[in-house]
């Protein structure tokens, strides 16, 4: 076994004790070395899981002055900035500005809560009508009848420097509660 051509491996301490000490040392050093890279790499790879929380941005609808004297809902096309990783694109979406009386407004998404068609405002009827499956909503967006399970979806709004802004979101279709889609 130990021929003359081998240097001594151990000088003192029982083999068993020395081995387990070395094993622990290697485990610690190996752990530190791998963690130094592994932790940042895991954070790096899982970044998109945390980034989606930011959500969509605010879009301009128009100057508040344009809407103060409204008597019926009016459609506006808004530009919605959609950030997709390192790129951003602008998508167009139609929204309705609905007068609530006393200068108050609300903004409804034109996306039908049934299957996502674009709901039309029909002036003659004084109602919102979905052309695809005949869903009908009142002037304020409440469900009258038809296949949709809920009223038209209202959107978050704010006014900044006289500019009406809206946060456009998509909501889950064919459910009775308004659930934003991530």
């Amino acid at each position, binding site marked *: *076994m*130990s*021929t*003359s*051509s*081998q*240097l001594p*491996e151990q000088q003192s301490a029982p*083999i*068993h004790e020395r*081995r387990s000490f*070395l094993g622990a*040392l*290697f485990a610690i*050093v*190996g752990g*530190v*070395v791998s963690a*130094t*890279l592994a*932790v*940042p*790499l895991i*954070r*790096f*790879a*899982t*970044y998109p899981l*945390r*980034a989606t929380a930011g959500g969509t941005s605010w879009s301009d609808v128009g100057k508040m002055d344009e809407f103060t004297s409204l008597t019926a809902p009016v*459609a*506006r*096309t808004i*530009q919605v900035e*959609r*950030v997709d*990783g*390192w*790129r*951003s*694109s*602008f*998508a*167009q*979406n*139609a929204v309705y500005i609905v007068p609530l009386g006393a200068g108050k407004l609300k903004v409804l998404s*034109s996306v039908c809560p049934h299957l996502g*068609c*674009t*709901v*039309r*405002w*029909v002036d*003659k009827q004084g109602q919102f009508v*979905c*052309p*695809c499956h005949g869903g009908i909503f009142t002037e304020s967006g409440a469900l009258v009848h038809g296949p949709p399970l809920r009223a038209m979806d209202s959107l978050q709004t704010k006014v900044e420097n006289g500019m009406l802004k809206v946060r456009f979101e998509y909501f889950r279709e064919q459910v009775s509660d308004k659930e934003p889609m991530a």
Partner: protein
Amino acid sequence: MSNTKHPATSETTKANPAWVKWLDRRTGIRSLLHEALDEPIPGGARWAYVFGSGLLYLFLSQIVTGIFLTLYYVPSSDHAHTTVAYISKVVSSGLFVRSVHAYGASAIIILLILHISQTLLYGSYKGRRDLLWLSGCVLLALMLGMAFTGYLLPWDEKSYFASAIGTNLIGEVPLIGPPMQELLRGGMQMGTLTVSRFFVLHVFILPGLLFAFIATHIFLFRKKGAAGPIQEDPYTPKLPTQGFYPRQVAMDMVASLFIVLALALVAHFLPIDLGPRANPADTSYIPRPEWYYVPMFQWLKIVSGRWSLIGGIFLPAFLALLFAAIPFLDRGRERRPWRRPVVVASFVIFIGSYVALGVASHRDDASDPSVASQLALQNQAEINYMHQPFQAQATSGTTSAALATSNPLVTKGATIYEAQSCSACHGENGTGTAAAPALVGIDRKYSADQLAHLLHHFSPKMVQGGMPAVDLDPADTDALVAYLRSLK
């Protein structure tokens, strides 16, 4: 190789838990492990031997960080810079991961120099290990290729111009140079094909070759054995040996711990900069290569003109061949450096000249006020760029070109098109869906008046297709018609 049974083998066997025994029955893992760890080292473990495994560790770190970087990187001249900016400024730990990868390249160069110096000074290339040396030379060339191809990928000013010059040099080689340059660039000029080609070389071809040659290098190392100290015979080793495990393993681990900590500290406290996006039209930019190529760059400045072919191409090629041939020229049994003055002195002179050229380059840059101020400007531009917030790259998205022309009638028509749900069947921007035909190019088929008429008096085909009635006043009809006729 594993000449005798390890003294501790029987001891550890008893301590092994059942799952290790099960795994061993299935895989023979224990004998593999012993094969790997019981490598006999003539003369025992030494700190001088840690560079090889340090390089292996760094290579693995480059592979892992490189794979993670490609989670976000896009190899095209349109997107490369944006995606690297995204990695550096937005993604969690992105700047750290990119810094570890970029500085890892420099660390590999430093360790290569140490590894080669140790091999040369110890005369470890001699005798039975000549082929091992040659495989190492191939690895050196591949690593330099990795550093060169990886440098371009961020597509910032620095990397663009350094690579433009680097590929220009290839074009200087007689006969094969110009076609080689065009092949590497994917054309006469640097462009998006250059990024693709460098990416493929950096990520597929060179790493594939590196894996193959690292395997060869390690195989030859194990086959012919460790060189041992300078007293050891290069042909038939005689010194008493010591196993690779545990002492050399411990030293190698301490070394890689030191490397990873140094790399992590530098990456954390002095993260690598990304400059502004490459602007090929920028004529004022003064390119400077990465530090390990600076001496070569200075040398090319010196030999420019009449001597450029001999000094710039043939001399380096000759030196590279001479370097690879060292084991075949220096064949004696003598390994002590002081008894091999030619090889050792040549190497020291080479390293000394390389360092001196680097110093001279820095002195030249510093002594020329116009160069110095431009370089300072470029450096400041990088720092400024790093401080700017990330800007997502705007893509055209679904905004039609017609809207961009901002004809108010067309814009109004687009709103009506959306509000009337025309897009539900005719598609966004009139591109058509399964339910209804496309409207793009309809202006060639109908005049404005014909179209307005058609909207209120459907053709039989439209009725058959189930098109809902269009209920619009004349003004809105005009707007919708204007929008439809703008669809191209």
